[in-house]
């Protein structure tokens, strides 16, 4: 057996590919579902928190800032393990899928809140004044004048952060969420062959390269000239 054959047999064995592609495909589906749910929940929650913060109610802001700092500091894996293995001790049993979705959403929300907040604070004071001077309320000004600008400012950093968080769906493997990596490692231990892992890696690349490309497109699309 030549080295080349050994390499192919280890990473690209055809019968392994035939046998395991359905489970990898299943994993892709789960990854896409979680990623979509995380992006939707995380961005919305982040926007909501940043908007709340704009009202500058002291007590609420303290809570928001603590939440944001904790979830930006905590490694997501730690939060996942803590919730999945800790909460049953107090009688709360959450499905692994829910735990993964919850933790990643909260982490994304924490980063998104900071990004949206930076956008809100960097919107010129004159924008608020112009809107308020025409009789718009604080909330209307926030919704129609400030947030649209804050969101645009936030798009480039948000794109990066969103990609980073969705890749973290792979952490679900440690609590048995049947996403790509989990399917691949299961197959690898059954078969004693690395081909399923390579298939998983290829699946991630095929899945995320388009996301990265779309992200770049969004960044240029939203980088509009400021007056």
């Amino acid at each position: 057996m030549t080295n080349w054959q050994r390499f192919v047999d280890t990473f690209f064995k055809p019968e392994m590919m035939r046998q395991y592609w359905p489970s990898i495909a299943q994993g892709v589906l789960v990854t896409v579902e979680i990623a979509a749910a995380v992006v939707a929940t995380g961005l919305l929650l982040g926007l909501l928190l940043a908007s709340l913060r704009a009202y500058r109610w002291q007590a609420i802001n303290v809570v928001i800032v603590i939440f944001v700092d904790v979830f930006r500091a905590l490694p997501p894996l730690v939060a996942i393990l803590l919730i999945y293995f800790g909460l049953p001790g107090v009688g709360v049993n959450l499905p692994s899928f829910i735990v993964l979705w919850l933790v990643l959403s909260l982490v994304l929300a924490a980063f998104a809140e900071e990004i949206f907040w930076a956008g809100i604070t960097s919107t010129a004071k004159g924008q608020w004044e112009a809107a308020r001077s025409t009789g718009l309320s604080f909330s209307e000004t926030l919704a129609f004048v400030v947030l649209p600008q804050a969101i645009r400012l936030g798009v480039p950093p948000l794109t990066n952060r969103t990609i980073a968080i969705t890749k973290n769906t792979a952490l679900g493997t440690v609590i048995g969420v049947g996403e790509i990596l989990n399917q691949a490692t299961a197959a690898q231990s059954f078969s004693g062959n690395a081909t399923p892992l390579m298939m998983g890696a290829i699946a991630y690349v095929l899945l995320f390269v388009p996301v990265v490309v779309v992200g770049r497109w969004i960044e240029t699309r939203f980088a509009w000239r400021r007056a």
Partner: protein
Amino acid sequence: MRLIPSAGGGCNSDAAGMAILVVSGLRKSFGSTEVLKGIDLSIAERELVFIIGPSGSGKSTLLRCLNRLEEPSRGSVTFDGVEVTARGTDLNALRRSMGMVFQSFNLYPHMTALGNVTLALRRVLKKPRSEAEALGRRALAGVGLADKALSYPSELSGGQQQRVAIARALALDPKIVLFDEPTSALDPELVGSVLAVMRELKRRGMTMLVVSHELRFAREAADRVVFIDDGRIVEEGSAEAIFTAPRESRTKAFVAQLMR
């Protein structure tokens, strides 16, 4: 209508009607710095009053206290019979009838000219889209920008942007327009188009309070010129009186500098 016939090209407040805006004992401090030290001022309907003064004298702060973009520390402002500074006053309702135009235009960059003009019509006056757009287009036509309705602020010159900002204020049919250095951020060749719009407003009998150093415009259009220094009104009178025969030495010094 409560219009009082204009006396024609006169340059004192006899050209105007009843007091629509009354400021009394207005003070404003930022921290320990007192910027306005007791302002008493009365503006009549249809009057165009110019406010001049050195930078930092409190002119802009005064203007911004009138619609409470800045919260006055003491004193009162009464506009059209409503006490602006009273606790329960519906500020949002009040601000509809007090238009404001800013030095740096402050157009919403993510909206077209028409979007800028119609936002308050739709959200504050709750006009349906079609009606708001008709009013918005009329307001833009009024400042000579009918063809720019769908342009974004970044596609317009400074003079055009400022005229959109004026249209945004006028679309709400205000009873007074406050101008905060409307031409200071403009290249000299663009100033004329904005002044032309203000001249037309004056001709139509709009009450206007203008912080500006456009001397020639003041001479031609102002019913009264108020000189503010160090948070106080030092002197007021007709443009002619203030610019050619000021009584106070501080006014003299400032006017001499302006003329240079």
